[in-house]
């Protein structure tokens, strides 16, 4: 199943093209609304399953884009599955920035602009339901 069909693939492909580093790619992806929605539309197990399907396909820009979108989506989910996934990713050489993405997940690379809070489960909410201390993600 093509679970990635709602990703803004054109914009994301542009980011993958011009990314000089894993942190640039990660920050740009996480600011993309379609990636955030993607992250919360599927379970970690669905995302991981799709990752391993895509990783075995031809290494095109399009496939790399989906693969990185899945990785970023999984980084927003905190579970034993995603933890295990990022542990394995450290040694998975099928993509260019496997180790760097894993480091970002484990907060070895820190971002001042946002902080992953493992104890929280995020979900998209309507504007009218926003309450104090909810997290806002700007689509820059």
């Amino acid at each position, binding site marked *: 199943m093509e679970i990635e069909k709602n990703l803004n693939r054109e914009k994301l*492909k*542009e980011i993958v*093209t011009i990314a*000089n580093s894993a942190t640039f790619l990660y920050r740009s992806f996480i600011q993309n609304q379609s990636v955030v929605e993607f992250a919360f539309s599927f379970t970690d197990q669905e995302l991981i399953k799709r990752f391993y399907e895509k990783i075995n396909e031809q290494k095109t*820009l399009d496939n790399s884009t989906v693969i990185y979108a899945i990785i970023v989506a999984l980084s927003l989910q905190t579970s034993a599955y995603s933890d295990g996934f990022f542990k394995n990713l450290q040694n998975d050489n099928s993509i*260019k920035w496997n180790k760097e993405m894993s480091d970002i997940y484990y907060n070895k690379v820190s*971002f001042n602009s946002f902080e992953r809070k493992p104890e929280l489960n995020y979900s998209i909410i309507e504007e009218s339901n926003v309450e104090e201390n909810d997290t806002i993600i700007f689509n820059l």
Partner: protein
Amino acid sequence: MTLSGGNPTIRLQTRKGTDINNYQLHNIDITQYEVQMAKLSQQYLGIILRPNTITGMYNCHGMTFASRRTGINTISMQLITEDDFIQIADNEVLPGDVVLYINDLGEIEHTGFITSVDLPNRSKFTTMVLSKWGDGSEVIHAIFNCPYAKDNIQFVRCKN
């Protein structure tokens, strides 16, 4: 050449002998990257794409600091200092100097070479840069006309 992770890597050091992590990405899908670069040309009007420069062999830092031999994921001020670069003021910039695009986290997000400066005025707006955009093309562009962080732009020059 050895392998670092899955990617080939070469021996690369600063002048002072500190190893620099690097990678070469072979066999990227050039046709798809060409499409993306063509789209970027529409977005960033006036940029010039240097032909036949789409490659995963090097990125912007690899072009600027490793003579296009390899890609460098992270470049720090420490590495730049070890290569005897010194910071220069905006009004001292000349072609051949290096431009650093520093993001809000203080990371060097992008680098390139200054190719021309409007010498009488030294206006930053007319300063031209040659830089490589990820695995895409090398691009000649006005200093602010690129998709990287532009709030903190600094210049360095190698003192020999």
